[in-house]
């Protein structure tokens, strides 16, 4: 049985259809990533799946419970890490977890034992009695993750778990999330960091304008949607060079004064760059970001 099953999900605000027919199937034990530019409908999709808002159409089954009708029952077995830190500033780290556990009807000796272990997991063992405003951004996010685990959930839903964190803090979160999947928990996360999705997610879906454009494993998506090699070229004369490069590449794209050449074999491209001292270039294997940009376009989303 899948952990989350979504069919034909729709939600509009006025004339704007924010979620426009989403289908999702998340299997036990996997880490599933929902990717998309700002405004793609990721957060709204999560809120709908948690039963926090009502869909206009479609069906949702979360841990075997129909949502939103029995969302409350479903949420007893789900942990949520929201996009914005909403830890309780009036409490210490420990109190935040104890108070939050009570919203699940959990308290007493069992929680008193469990909370120190959760803080340990979040790398906050030494900060158990620290006030929230004395914690760094990374610590707060880890505490929010620990708070999402107070009920020992089967599914952990995370909305942009590493946005705004420095690389050290981000790597630490990733390591913890891998531990959770190793323990058998199912993870559903949204992100717009392709690197994060590529490293963490077993499967992912790219969402744009309320629709799921494509889904699959990161490798399969790269193999299926993009040429394996990329050469990025920038500098004076890149535009003129681009005309010549078209002959050697399956696909050429330009963003500002940078030219992206996608091809299975880039040897001819590199050769044509050999004599061009004013052009700087970077040769790399194609990644998920290339797939993402190909499918959702290079235009800014504000």
């Amino acid at each position, binding site marked *: 049985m899948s952990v989350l099953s979504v069919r034909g999900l729709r939600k509009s605000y006025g004339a704007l259809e924010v979620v426009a027919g989403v289908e999702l199937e998340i299997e036990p034990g996997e880490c599933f990533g929902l990717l998309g530019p700002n405004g793609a409908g990721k957060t709204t999709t999560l809120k709908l799946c948690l039963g926090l808002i009502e869909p206009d159409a479609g069906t949702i089954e979360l841990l075997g419970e129909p949502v939103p009708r029995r969302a*409350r029952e479903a949420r007893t077995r789900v942990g949520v890490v929201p996009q914005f830190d*909403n*830890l*309780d500033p009036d409490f210490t780290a420990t109190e935040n977890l104890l*108070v939050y556990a*009570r*919203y699940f009807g959990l308290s007493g000796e069992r929680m008193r034992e469990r909370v120190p272990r959760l803080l340990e997991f979040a790398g906050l063992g030494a900060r158990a009695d620290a006030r929230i405003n004395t914690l760094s951004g990374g610590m707060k996010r880890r505490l929010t993750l620990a708070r999402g685990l107070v009920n020992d959930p089967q599914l952990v839903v995370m909305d942009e778990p590493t946005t705004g964190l420095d690389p050290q803090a981000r790597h630490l979160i990733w390591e913890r999330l891998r531990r959770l999947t190793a323990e058998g928990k199912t993870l559903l996360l949204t992100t717009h960091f392709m690197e994060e999705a590529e490293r963490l997610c077993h499967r992912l879906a790219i969402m744009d304008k309320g629709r799921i454009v494509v889904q699959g494993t990161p490798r399969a998506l790269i193999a299926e949607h993009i040429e394996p090699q990329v050469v990025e070229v920038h500098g004076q004369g890149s535009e003129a060079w681009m005309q010549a490069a078209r002959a050697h590449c399956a696909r050429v794209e330009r963003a500002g004064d940078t030219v992206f050449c996608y091809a299975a074999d880039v040897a001819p491209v590199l050769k044509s760059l050999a004599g061009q001292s004013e052009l700087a270039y970077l040769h790399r294997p194609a990644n998920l970001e290339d797939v993402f940009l190909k499918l959702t376009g290079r235009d800014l989303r504000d």
Partner: protein
Amino acid sequence: MKASFFARPELSLRWVAVWRRNWLVWRRLAIPSILGNLADPLIMLFGLGYGLGALLGEMGGTSYFGFLAAGIAASATMYAATFESLFSAFSRMHVQRTWEAIVNAPMTLDDVLAGEWAWAATKALAAGGCILVIVAAFGYATPWRAISALPVIVLLGLAFAALGLAVNALANGYDFFSYYMTIVLTPMLMLSGVFFPIEQLPGPVQAAAKVLPLYHGIALVRPLLLGGLPGAVWLHLAVIGAYAIVGFYLALILTRRRLLK
């Protein structure tokens, strides 16, 4: 507005966890908070009660201090419930996003609102109760009479907390609350018989005053403190109770509309 916004409240007993959260925060700041809440009504009670009372002699067949005591107890309840359900609830709803965190747990927005409602009424009871203790300590009511007024204080707290939560659901910032305070509460304070019997007011104004919950609260508390039995007890209780229940339902509808989009 969607039909689901008007649905019956979907409550679980876990609303108590919301009340306990607020209690845990307040417990640490209890003493400054109580002093802050009581300073204003006590200054009014002693300043006007003794100062103006010396000039006025008696009012309504009793000392002015004794007359004022019921009005101050009821209005302190009103203000304590209002402050908690406006400013403090707004911080938790909008600024700290505490409510948002809570509804990710198996809690409904209705649970959150019920917890906040009970909490604001609790703080109102603490404020009104403290005034009653002081009134009794100064010999203006016997302890039993002061205790007999407590149920009215509870109900008044629930009524003003419910109204406050409804206003909170409409607020776009803290400034919004000053309209409610100055346009609704201040006139209510003047018209409800806190400082003088409403019989002093022109007929039509008296009639208008009789729809205000504070008037009905004072109509009960004053005779209870002074040793008589209030008339039309059930009518007064029913009006305050209606404000509490209709007010809470309104707060539910407006808060759902605001947060469950």
